[in-house]
């Protein structure tokens, strides 16, 4: 339906013609799409149709029909617009209120959450330390009126009735101890006593660290450590284990920490690992490793042989107070590769690092043979003496019984330098233990090139009585007096049924069968209750043995 135009007749005529013209132009456009023509082009069209000066009339006719046409001034001209519906176009802006882009650009505020309820905390049990302290009765007195008015006790009333009691606890201020007058040894002892008992602190040797900072090892790590030691067939130091098994290079920032962790953690694995080191050279051992040193005699039996050392050593020896010692090798020490852990040796060697440490592996370096020997120091027990074993090869390759050796300490408390006196080669018939058939003492020609103490050299001319003798049985060996008597009979000078021998010869002779110190031998000879032994008045430092009265 054609829209109704308004205005004068002339205006209606012009408006109808303009509308017809514009609808013809926009006949394929949508109903609401604006159809636009400029006022100048409309005027030109009507003038081409024979109208004259029609522009003014066109403007008035269009202005008279604002419902049909809209006019927009543009650059000195006017744009006339309408739609196929015959209505002035209405500019419709696309709604962007809920567009995707606008929602991104102007996000909605976060929804407000209700305030979280505070989580209830576990209240510590209230302990009234001053419960027994007498408080003035007035302070706790409840007004009688409140109680009388309310026969049934109400909480509010009770709370109001009890006045707050302020308590002040005065503690005595603790000040640091003045340690300026205390020496380092006592301070170290005090630190060990206090921190050593604290489970939060990890301690090994002279090192300390908070326990929670010590790296932990898995069962796999421990198994690899044990396997590596068994593969090497000897105790290994913590340095070697950290580098070879744990893969931490020496000099890396973590090396010290890992080494401490290894020592601390293995010390707690009592069943699998045993500390056998010193403070500077920390060896670790495990089960299944071959024994260091002699297998001729059980370690317990050797310890029992050295039992006399317990009485000859101090309960608190001054470890590492001596820089070197000289020692004359006995036959017993020679065939077993031993050294006694006597008073001198205790002053040379270090104390055990850990409590209840049974043994320490040491390294003995012989610069004369360019060889380093791994030896084991067995610490004394309440009923067995201490000794060092593992020197078999050093002895048999370089020395003879009676040789003088020197052991010198180094800065490393686990490493020692052992030397002998190099001398021109000499030969002689010296005592040996023939083990090919039944064990017997024999004399064989021997060449040696070391310094010896002549009185302790077991030559055939002085100790010929040992030839073809069997070693004493264990029952006799366990009794030092019986050993002394047997030695008298073997090497003593027979005089009217008695035997006489000088002290040094006796000392060398008894040490063929079992270890015996000069102190112990002198004690047996001088203080024998049976009267079997007595001083020989005819010779200097000689003794006589009367057979038949053997203890």
């Amino acid at each position, binding site marked *: 339906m054609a829209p109704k135009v308004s205005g004068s007749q002339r205006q209606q005529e012009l408006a109808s013609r303009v509308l017809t013209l514009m609808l013809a132009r926009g006949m394929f456009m949508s109903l609401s799409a604006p159809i636009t023509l400029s006022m100048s082009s409309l005027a030109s069209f009507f003038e081409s149709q024979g109208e004259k000066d029609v522009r003014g009339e066109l403007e008035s006719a269009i202005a008279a029909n604002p419902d049909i046409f809209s006019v927009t001034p543009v650059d000195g001209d006017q744009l006339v617009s309408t739609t196929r519906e015959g209505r002035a176009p209405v500019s419709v802006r696309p709604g962007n209120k809920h567009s995707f882009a606008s929602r991104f650009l102007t996000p909605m505020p976060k929804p407000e959450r209700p305030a979280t309820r505070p989580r209830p905390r576990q209240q510590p049990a209230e302990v009234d330390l001053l419960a027994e302290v007498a408080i003035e009765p007035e302070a706790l007195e409840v007004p009688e009126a409140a109680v009388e008015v309310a026969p049934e006790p109400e909480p509010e009333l009770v709370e109001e009735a009890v006045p707050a009691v302020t308590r002040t606890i005065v503690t005595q201020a*603790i*000040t*640091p*101890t003045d340690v300026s007058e*205390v020496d380092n040894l006592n301070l*170290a002892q005090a630190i060990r006593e206090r921190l050593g008992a604290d489970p939060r602190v990890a301690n090994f040797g002279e*090192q300390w*660290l908070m326990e929670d900072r010590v790296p932990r090892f898995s069962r796999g790590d421990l198994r690899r450590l044990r396997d590596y030691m068994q593969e090497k067939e000897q105790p290994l130091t913590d340095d070697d284990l950290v580098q070879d098994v744990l893969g931490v290079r020496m000099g890396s920032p973590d090396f010290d920490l890992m080494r401490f962790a290894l020592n601390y953690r293995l010390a707690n694995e009592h069943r699998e690992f045993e500390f056998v080191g010193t403070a500077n050279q920390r060896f670790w051992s495990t089960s299944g490793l071959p024994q260091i040193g002699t297998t001729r005699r059980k370690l317990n039996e050797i310890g029992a042989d050295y039992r006399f050392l317990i009485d000859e050593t101090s309960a608190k020896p001054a470890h590492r107070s001596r820089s070197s010692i000289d020692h004359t090798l006995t036959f017993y020490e020679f065939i077993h590769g031993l050294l006694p852990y006597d008073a001198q040796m205790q002053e040379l060697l270090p104390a055990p690092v850990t409590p209840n440490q049974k043994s320490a592996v040491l390294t003995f370096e012989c610069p004369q043979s360019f060889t380093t020997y791994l030896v084991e120091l067995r610490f004394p027990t309440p009923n067995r003496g201490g000794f060092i074993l593992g020197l078999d090869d050093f002895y048999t390759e370089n020395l003879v019984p009676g040789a003088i050796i020197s052991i010198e300490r180094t800065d490393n408390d686990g490493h020692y330098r052992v030397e002998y006196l190099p001398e021109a080669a000499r030969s002689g018939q010296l005592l040996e233990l023939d083990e090919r058939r039944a064990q017997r003492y024999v004399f064989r020609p021997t060449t040696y090139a070391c310094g010896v103490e002549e009185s302790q050299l077991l030559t055939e001319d002085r100790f010929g009585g040992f030839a073809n003798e069997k070693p004493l049985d264990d029952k006799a060996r366990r009794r030092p007096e019986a050993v002394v008597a047997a030695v008298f009979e073997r090497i003593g000078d027979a005089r009217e049924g008695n035997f006489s021998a000088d002290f040094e010869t006796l000392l060398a002779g008894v040490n063929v069968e079992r270890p015996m110190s000069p102190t112990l031998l002198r004690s047996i000879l001088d203080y024998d209750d049976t009267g079997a032994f007595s001083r020989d008045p005819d010779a200097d430092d000689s003794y006589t043995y009367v057979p038949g009265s053997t203890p």
Partner: protein
Amino acid sequence: MTPPEATGEPGQVHLNDEDIAYLMNFLRNAPQPVTTQQLIDVLRRQLAPTHELEGAPEASS
């Protein structure tokens, strides 16, 4: 500052809780193991500021 607590043998000292707390604080800040000698030095240093203050001459007024 308290004098060293008397113990059984002469020269021995017993550290109190304040000393141990000071050592523990030092250990907590140590990333690597420390030696006993270092702990001894820490204990001796604990009193150093006090000694310095005591030994310092009084300011003239």
